[in-house]
């Protein structure tokens, strides 16, 4: 090797190498983000973990769903693990997912996919808020195995891992493949030998065909889904019905169960509710329509027990029939099935007068000072009372103070701060009535006259009644005759009734029915036109035995409160003046 003496010799390659380095580095391409987010999407998330999700990934790619689940969107997907899918394949007798036909796989994917983002905190005891892309809803719950509780999905799988949030939705990992229901309600009931009597009743009444139609074959969406409250043979047997013939003998009055007016037909129809109603939808409403056109079932949730037709009617408690929770919420293609623990049937009722104290609200009767003279009047805000609603302001439950006696039943009343059109004040009140049997009734509103409510339009189920009521009108004053303050000269209860007015208390001379005058126990009263009386709101037509809505809208402007005592619903043809209701709780019958 020649000794390098001149620097020129080694400088040249060095410069060359340096230039090369500079060239290379400067030419390096700059990385630009071509995505707006680096979050992975559903498909990519699953691909990243083939040990757990390779089978589901494969299904997605076979069904060409991989592309859409890799793109933009809002999805919730229940992903069965590889173990779950292997068990499913074994059950189906297939070796791998590619052995299953594409349409079947498509259905499987659709049933695991919801076009909505539903986090696990929204899983309740019923269905998810959005249906799967297959069309059926998935129901949720919880299950305890050996002390460990996990969320139960569609009663078929346990939730292994919840709420994996990815770019286009939420992944929930489950330990079993979810299988949609393949049976119609009719088929499902028919298939269970325990329901044979009910099933035969469905067939004999023609409801079997009605409940055997797939939703896709119907154009009327209101008829696609139904809810059936099925009574098993055991339950019927306990009620003395051992066979279909017993059932027919008990209910069928025309001998032709197919006829819509036959009582057996109505009985079966009374067990079918239109629409898809899982248990939460059942117990969150107080009543539901049935296919028996004029009858509803009422629902009460008592602790954790759901009762059908547990009603108080005409002052008597009628015990209800319990729904068997653990064997309810069973999904069919065209609806949902619930099972009864006790049978129930239509109750034949005739219109009966309802004398309703508006203070008879569950939240109020539970108060310790209910109907007790006291100094504190409980206040309620809109939403505090389940059966009374109003626009704004505090409603008070009041017991009439001794010093300023009003003649109201049980001495108590409901106080509303205003009923006026002013936008800044309360301008409407809505009462949910007690159970009214179908029929025509006259509605009387008994109240304490105050300054407010000078013009009120009353409506029943949204239909306005003709009279505008003036709750602030002072009638002709009372007059002392003997020891009793009574109607003014020339005015009789009957003449007032013709004007749609009545006195709701007193009216009989027997000592037990007399109402003492407030500041002089020697004197009595039976009419107090300037302070409290009842006004006729109009006649209502109750088309269905149910609880209904009575609403008051202000059509007048002015300040002042309004105070309600009772609302009477009296069948049209019956006596409208009796009975009367005294402050001490006595009911005054017609003489």
């Amino acid at each position, binding site marked *: 090797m020649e000794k390098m003496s001149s620097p020129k010799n080694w400088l040249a390659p060095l410069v060359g190498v340096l230039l090369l380095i500079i060239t290379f580095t400067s030419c390096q391409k700059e990385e630009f983000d071509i995505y707006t987010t680096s979050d992975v999407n559903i498909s990519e998330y699953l691909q990243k973990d083939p040990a757990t999700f390779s089978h589901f990934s494969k299904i997605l790619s076979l069904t060409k769903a991989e592309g859409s689940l890799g793109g933009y969107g809002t999805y919730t997907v229940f992903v069965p693990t590889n173990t779950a899918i292997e068990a499913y394949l074994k059950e189906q007798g297939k070796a791998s997912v590619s052995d299953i036909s594409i349409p079947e796989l498509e259905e499987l994917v659709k049933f695991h996919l919801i076009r909505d983002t539903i986090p696990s905190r929204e899983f309740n005891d019923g269905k998810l808020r959005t249906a799967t892309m297959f069309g059926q809803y998935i129901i949720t719950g919880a299950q305890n195995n050996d002390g460990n509780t996990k*969320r139960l999905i569609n009663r078929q799988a346990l939730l292994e891992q919840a709420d994996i949030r990815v770019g286009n939705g939420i992944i929930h990992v489950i330990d079993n493949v979810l299988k949609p229901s393949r049976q119609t309600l009719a088929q499902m009931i028919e298939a269970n030998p325990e329901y044979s009597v009910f099933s035969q009743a469905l067939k004999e009444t023609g409801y079997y065909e009605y409940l055997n139609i797939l939703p896709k074959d119907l154009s009327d969406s209101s008829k696609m889904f139904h809810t059936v409250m099925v009574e098993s043979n055991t339950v019927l047997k306990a009620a003395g019905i051992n066979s279909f013939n017993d059932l027919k003998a008990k209910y069928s009055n025309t001998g032709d169960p197919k006829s819509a007016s036959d009582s057996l037909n109505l009985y079966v129809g009374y067990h079918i509710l239109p629409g898809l109603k899982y248990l939460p939808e059942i117990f*969150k409403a107080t009543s539901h329509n049935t296919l028996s056109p004029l009858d509803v079932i009422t629902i009460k949730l008592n602790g954790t027990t759901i009762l059908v037709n547990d009603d108080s009617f005409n002052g008597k408690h009628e015990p209800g029939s319990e729904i068997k929770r653990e064997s309810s919420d069973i999904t069919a293609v065209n609806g949902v099935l619930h099972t009864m623990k006790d049978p129930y049937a239509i109750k034949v009722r005739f219109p009966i007068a309802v004398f309703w104290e508006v203070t008879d609200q569950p939240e109020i009767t539970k108060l310790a000072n209910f109907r007790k003279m006291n100094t504190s009047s409980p206040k309620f805000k809109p939403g505090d009372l389940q059966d009374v609603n109003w626009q704004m302001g505090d409603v008070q439950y009041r017991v009439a103070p001794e010093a300023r006696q009003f003649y109201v039943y049980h001495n108590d009343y409901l106080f509303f701060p205003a009923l006026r059109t002013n936008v800044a004040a309360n301008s409407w009140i809505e009462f949910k009535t007690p159970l009214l049997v179908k029929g025509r009734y006259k509605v009387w509103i008994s109240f304490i006259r105050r300054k407010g409510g000078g013009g009120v339009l009353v409506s029943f189920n949204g239909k306005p009644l003709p009279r505008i009521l003036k709750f602030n009108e002072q009638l002709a004053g009372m007059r002392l005759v003997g020891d009793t303050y009574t109607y003014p000269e020339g005015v009789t209860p009957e003449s007032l009734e013709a004007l749609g007015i009545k006195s709701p208390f007193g009216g009989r001379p027997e000592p037990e029915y007399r109402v003492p005058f407030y500041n002089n126990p020697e004197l009595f009263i039976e009419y107090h036109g300037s302070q409290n009386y009842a006004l006729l709101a109009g006649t209502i037509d109750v088309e269905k035995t149910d609880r209904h809505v009575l609403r008051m809208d202000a059509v007048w402007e002015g300040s002042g409160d309004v105070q309600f005592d009772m609302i009477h619903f009296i069948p049209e043809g019956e006596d409208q003046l009796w009975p009367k209701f005294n402050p001490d709780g006595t009911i005054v019958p017609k003489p």
Partner: protein
Amino acid sequence: MTRNTTYILVLSALLLLTTTSCDKYLDLKPKDGVVRQEFWQTKEQVAAAVNGCYASLLAPPLVENLFLWGELRADMLEARSGIRRQELDIINVNIESTNPLSNWAAVYTTINYCNNVIKFAPEVLRNDNTFTQAALNGYIGEAMALRALMYFYLARTFGDVPLKLEPTASDKDEVQLPKSSQQDVLNQVVTDLKQAEQYVQTNYGKNELNKGRITKYAVNAMLADVYLWQNDYQSSIAECNKVINSGQYGLVVGDNNWFPTIFYEGGSSESIFEVYFNINRLNPFYSMFSPSVSRRFGASLLAREEIFASNPEEIIEKDIRGDGAAFKLNDGSIWKYLGVNSGTARSSAASYGNFMVYRYADILLMKAEALNELGQGQEALDIIEIIRTRANALPETAQVVEPDDKNGITDYILAERAREFAYEGKRWYDLLRNARRNNYERSDLLLNIVANTAQLEFQQSAITKLRDKNSHYLPVYFYELATNKKLVQNPFYQ
């Protein structure tokens, strides 16, 4: 050559100037605070540091968390219009690790303050000759007791938690700690409390200091409580007796002044330890309970009508702890922190009612609980009677229980505790402590809660979830899991 020397001289001078002038610039000390090395010098600084531990109790959201952890999962609160989503989720037993109420950071902040005192206060002994060993022990005892109290809350709320006993003072300190079991945490709490009992004072010379700082008797109260959780009833009774025999405490007379004395004025003869709020540091309760704002909670129907049944015949007869104390019957508001007396309300600016941690009544009822577990039912019933007589409890809430009916007496004590300590952040812990004894023999106590509290559509799932005992403890907050890789989530939430 001279030119070279000149150059060298100038250069050296420059070098000298540069290095010396850089002195300040390189000295990195914060200008707005004191570093640790300069802090622990005098006994006044130790006192200030201990005060800081107590002051950290007032910083939001600590007391609000302690209250919500103790009440939200129980049955005495009712959701009102201002309820927050995370609170409703807990009521519905729909709890996830993203729920902000499962964030324990505020508690560990206080724990870290205490750790600092315990570790660094002894250095002061070398620097300040006027500082005595006894004074030092007193301060360290307070910090240990306060830390134990915080861990006691954590163990009851989260089950297993990381047990950090060293301060986090620099980046070198280990913060990635795994969880210790609930049992280990409770054992550490007992160890710390026993040490603290030796150290802390019995009297600080001023009433508000005796109630607002941890005394020996406050330590005894905590020990009595922890022993109940460890099912060590003899020890619990021994601790209760120390407080009872001290002669320092008694029950406040059950008349119209009962409520204002304990809850409005604070520092009553019944109080053992309470968190003192003040005009500059208001408590969190006004916006939670006041009917004049969009409140988050009211008193539940169960609390008003079942736990405190009013006498329907004679409205004058009332339990002094019910209407006008725990709540107001007319609007269902939680009154304990809102009232001046049974009728007058505090203004929002005066919402500085104290948060009760231990009262003498608690000592008596804890003793009753321990006695009952040891089969001394009659003595337990006698104590309940003392509490009831003082409170003018209504005959409707009296229970006829045989002295050998252990379960019956447990129910009675729980009902009496619900009345006595309504809205003092104790109800859920009371139910859980009793439910879990003897391998969850009384799990019914917990399962019965949600039928009254959860939203109807979540009720069934909620009951099933509570059958899993891991669900009785809150999850580790997701942020903690992400930052501390050694933490393992509670299996129920995995």
